[in-house]
């Protein structure tokens, strides 16, 4: 699989002329950049900017480059940046398979088979028609990850993705997420409060104040 590269070139985020954050970083395929810092330090705003959801109150300058393509002002659905939130956020109106199908890039020759295969990959064969609400916390987190991967992102943003899991699950999910992301050569930005997350990510760590 081809590795991707993500470059943040002199990105500066301002709120009403007050500088929130300035960052210049390059990520190779499979590399994880961890950003830590207290709330209000602008780390969620950075993710929002890279993903293309910066609220109108904020102003941004600099460039976000993904594989030589400038995605700074490309709309969110075309930028190729995937997101994983604190909550698994499985669509409550869709079945488990429906959620995976939502992620799957359109035009796949055998979508149904791909979804079944994806379910098997995360150990949930036969769960396709279930209501997501009937899954356990860990199962939901895995579906959420698989939904992201099926959308074939070229870079991934993680917004404290493990903070709501209980301790035993957390280690397992960390391993699973980083394994999948690095093996696919995806540059990843991780925002977290948890030092263990940063260690597991085994990449550079930037602390914001």
């Amino acid at each position, binding site marked *: 699989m081809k590795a991707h590269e993500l470059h943040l070139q002199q990105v500066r985020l301002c709120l009403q002329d007050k500088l929130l954050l300035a960052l210049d970083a390059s990520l190779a395929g499979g590399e994880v950049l961890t950003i830590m810092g207290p709330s209000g330090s602008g780390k969620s705003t950075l993710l929002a900017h890279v*993903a*293309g*959801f910066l*609220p*109108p109150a904020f102003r941004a300058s600099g460039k976000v480059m993904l594989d030589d393509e400038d995605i700074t002002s490309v*709309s*969110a*659905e075309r930028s190729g*940046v*995937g*997101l994983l*939130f604190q*909550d698994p*956020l*499985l*669509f*409550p*109106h869709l079945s488990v398979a429906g959620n995976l199908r*939502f*992620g799957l*890039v*359109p035009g796949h020759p055998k979508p149904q088979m791909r979804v079944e295969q994806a379910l098997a990959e995360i150990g949930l064969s036969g769960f396709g028609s279930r*209501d*997501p*609400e*009937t899954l356990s916390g860990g199962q939901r987190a895995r579906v959420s990850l698989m*939904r*992201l991967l099926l*959308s074939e*992102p070229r870079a991934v943003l993680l917004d404290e993705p493990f903070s709501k899991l209980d301790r035993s699950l957390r280690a397992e999910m960390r391993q699973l997420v980083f394994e999948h992301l690095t093996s696919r050569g995806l540059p990843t930005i991780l925002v977290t409060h948890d030092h263990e997350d940063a260690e597991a990510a085994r990449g550079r760590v930037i602390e914001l104040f």
Partner: protein
Amino acid sequence: MILRLIPVVVIAILVLPVLAGLILALLPAFGYLPVLGGEQLTLEPWLRLFASPGIWRSVGVSYATALVTTGLSLLIVFCFLAAVGARQSGRWSLDSWLRRLVSPLLSVPHAAAAFGFAFLIMPSGLLTRWISPGLTGWERPPDLLIVHDSLGLSLMAGLVMKEVPFLLLMSLAALPQVNAGQRVIMARSLGYRPGVAWLKVVAPALYPLIRLPVYAVLAFASSTVDVAMILGPTLPPTLSVQVVQWFNDPDLGTLYVASAGAIAQLLLTAAVLLNWWLFEQLASRLHALWVRRGHRSFADRSIRSFGRVTMSLVVLMAGLGFMALALNAFAGFWRFPAAWPASLSADAFFRALPTLQDPLLTTLVIAAAATILAVLLVIAALEREQRLGVAAPWALWLLYLPLLVPQIAFLSGITVSAEVIQSGPSLALVAAGHLLFVLPYVYLALAESYRRLDPRWSQLARSLGSSMNGVFWRVRLPLLLAPILTAAALGFAISISQYLPTRLLGAGRITTVTTEAVALAAGGDRRLIGIWSLVQALLPFVGFAVAIALPGLIWRNRRGMREIQ
């Protein structure tokens, strides 16, 4: 992009008819109506208006009704909230029951509620029957003018019964914004009794949030036609009813004085609003003084009991009124002091059924058209707001415009010109008229849920490759199905309850369940009135039942959908 134009469309729908209607009423009010030969501006219509017998009494009753109704309703709602807002009430307590009963009350059309109330309090009504002859000695109905009393007291009481639920629901919707619980706890820790604490620290923060609904109540109470025809004084009637009677006069020359009356109604409502604003200033001074004095427990117990008792009374009377409607519709032989009919029969109901069919169909067609249009427009406006991330700040005042300007004032102008250009009554015109009043309520009902939906749903969907439109169809619409249906049911109920727009824009030739029920008031056949009002009252319930049942059915295997409201 069509969405960008939506605010303009909504403004056009809400504002243009009101302004155009007012101008079209203003011209004949000063004698200008070329089709009927009026080509010069003159004060003649106004002179005739002021010379008509009893006109000042009509004005006085309308004016007093608006102020008393609104003041009393607000007092009841605030005292009730002071009584219940102070503490966590149990799931099955009196308070929570009252709250739950209030929203179905709101959906009962004004006319049906008024008829129910009339059947309760009239000399031969349910209440007199229950205490006669035991307590009163009456063997025949007493010769008292209770309904249609000349001071408009029963009109005020009937209106209070409908406005209390409205103001209560508006307050309950606004309360989370003012942190009521914390404020009360803080005040109580300083030694204030719970009811006093609520009135001193929550009420002043809450009132500005419900000011527009309060103004809408003032405008409605000062200009209602159907309720005033059923409960209000007759000789002379309220100003609004008098104006409608002039418009219905077969002598076309009366159109001038009718138009002057419509403009007079506009001025009257404006005066009422101004007067209320002065009351507000006075009340805020007195309130500040009361707060500064620092009394901890002044009249706390009386305030809270007043709130509880009056609120229970409102709910009880409305419930009994509904029962009175049903009893009258299905009563067999019912001699006077007998508390209950000797027998119940559905004969009259089945006999009325064939005549019910057509008006029922018309009612449903108009309500469906107005509701569907309103829901589409409101969703488009809210979707635009989501995508651009900004709301139009003046939107709320514009939304309330059709609710603040008396219906008779601008609808009459439109009617006169429709009559003059001989367009004839059309369902489309009536439905468009209903849209004016349905749209604001649908917007108010849906906006909150639409804005509260977690933005991460759409961010997630877009990061998975969905376009803006894809997010709307595949995520937002299904997630918001339940609130959308509830808003639609409310719009449907509002349309069902419209009397004047149907009567005027339909030129009296389009008959709905509502116009027919009100028309029956004059005849006094209680069985028929009972049947028609019962049908009118049940239609909104059907709408709400569908709105609750449908999402439950569609999402029966989706537990997560039950939490989204």
